[in-house]
């Protein structure tokens, strides 16, 4: 059997506010394989961001364990990169300097660094924007910069929290295609939290639907479409059929 890159075993998370306890989710079991792209869908507040934080090592489960590369996840590290919903580009660094940031801590020669930065910039089509500051960029360009920064050091696992939700439809589709390309080229393992069923379908190998809080995994949909995927896949009957199934599954939870 193929080795899992990251494994969640009976994971539970509660938050405590003084006397009150908020159970977010429990009994989450999941094995994510190397090279897989997994999407997580679920109603608002069901703990999608919390789940990513656990996988990134930014928080600890109240029960169960998360294993990454045969070791329990205790802290963030540069093999697993979390792309936060608010992006967190450094306002004081240019596009190029932002993308170069993760390389500062690696023992690379200047030439290697330069090469990686250039590759990352090409990957997300940011050529010509290198010298601009984040405040001078459109939403799509900011998102591209954040993605380039996340992948420049070639992490094993990429955790994305609603990365394209703030963008217009066209930009979103372009970025989805770019992300698909990155995933394929680098055989990257991706966990993507999203509200957009089409986005999940276009990009993922499996889609996880979480129930309302306190949440569990409600259903896992394997996505059969072969890769690379044509953007026009979105308009095929098979795609629409799956979209409808997932929508119904999700809809039940939204109403609760």
């Amino acid at each position: 059997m193929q080795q899992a890159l990251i494994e969640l075993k009976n994971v539970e998370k509660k938050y405590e506010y003084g006397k009150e306890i908020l159970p977010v989710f429990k009994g989450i079991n999941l094995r994510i394989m190397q090279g897989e792209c997994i999407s997580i869908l679920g109603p608002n507040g069901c703990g999608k961001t919390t789940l990513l934080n656990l996988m990134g090592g930014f928080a600890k489960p109240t029960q169960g364990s998360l294993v990454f590369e045969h070791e329990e996840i205790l802290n963030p590290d540069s093999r697993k990169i979390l792309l936060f919903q608010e992006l967190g580009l450094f306002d004081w660094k240019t596009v190029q300097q932002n993308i170069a940031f993760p390389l500062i801590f690696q023992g690379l020669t200047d030439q290697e660094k330069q090469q990686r930065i250039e590759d990352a910039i090409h990957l997300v089509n940011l050529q010509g924007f290198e010298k601009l500051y984040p405040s001078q960029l459109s939403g799509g360009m900011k998102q591209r910069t954040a993605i380039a920064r996340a992948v420049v050091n070639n992490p094993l696992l990429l955790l994305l929290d609603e990365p394209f939700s703030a963008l217009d439809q066209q930009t979103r589709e372009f970025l989805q295609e770019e992300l698909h390309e990155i995933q394929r080229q680098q055989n990257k393992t991706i966990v993507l939290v999203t509200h957009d069923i089409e986005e999940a379908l276009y990009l993922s190998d499996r889609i996880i639907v979480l129930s309302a809080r306190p949440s569990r995994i409600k259903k896992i949909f394997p996505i059969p479409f072969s890769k690379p995927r044509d953007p026009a896949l979105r308009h095929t009957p098979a795609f629409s059929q799956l979209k409808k199934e997932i929508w119904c599954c999700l809809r039940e939870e939204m109403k609760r």
Partner: protein
Amino acid sequence: MVFTTSKFFKPFLSIVVALAIWQLLVLLIPQSNILPSPLGVLNAFGITLSDGTLFLDIATSIKRVLLGFILGSFLGLLAGMFFALHKKLGEYVIPLLELIRPIPPIAWIPLAILWFGIGDFSALFLVMLGAFFPVFSNTYDGIRNIKNVHLHIARNFGAEKKHMIIHVFFPGALPSIFTGLRISMGISWMIVITAELVGASSGLGYMIQLHRILLQTDYIVVGMMVIGIIGFLMYKMMFFLEQRIVKWRIQDATSTH
């Protein structure tokens, strides 16, 4: 035509009008030594300029203000960074500083004179004191207000404390640090003049005080004008420096979308 459309025209016009009103007042007020005439001031300016005393006073004041400002704000910067990064220690020290802070630096003048005597050291001490606090608290706030997401990201990529300081804390706090520097610069100039009024025997503050005793109002006005112009230039220099260093902020303001 070029002149009328230039941005200097309006300020130039108002200066000319102000001079005219000033001259008119001089003609209306009989006691000539209370309000010097523009020409009298120009004359006094020429004399102090040619005998070199004005340059000497300017140099003395600038030397004091720059040294005090640089030392005071540097200490403020270091202390602000240190206590923002070591919050626990800050909890002991910051309340103490907050107690000292409301004492206006000029209220320290008597002690300063007793401790350091009349002259450079007193002025230096007072300017340092005045320059310290604005930079200290703005640096502190600037660092404490850095977004958590920036710290998370730096940690995720493997940044250690020293990298955090160089790449996140310091540049992230820079806009706020510059706010502190601008305030400190203004306060420093005010303090050095005040200190020289009472606790020095040289400098522009001393010069205007001396001419009060000699009842030479034209020289007083020369001193006042020079003090104003230097204050203005120092502010402009600070602004220039800020524009050069905090580039992302300035471009923010002029971006076109």
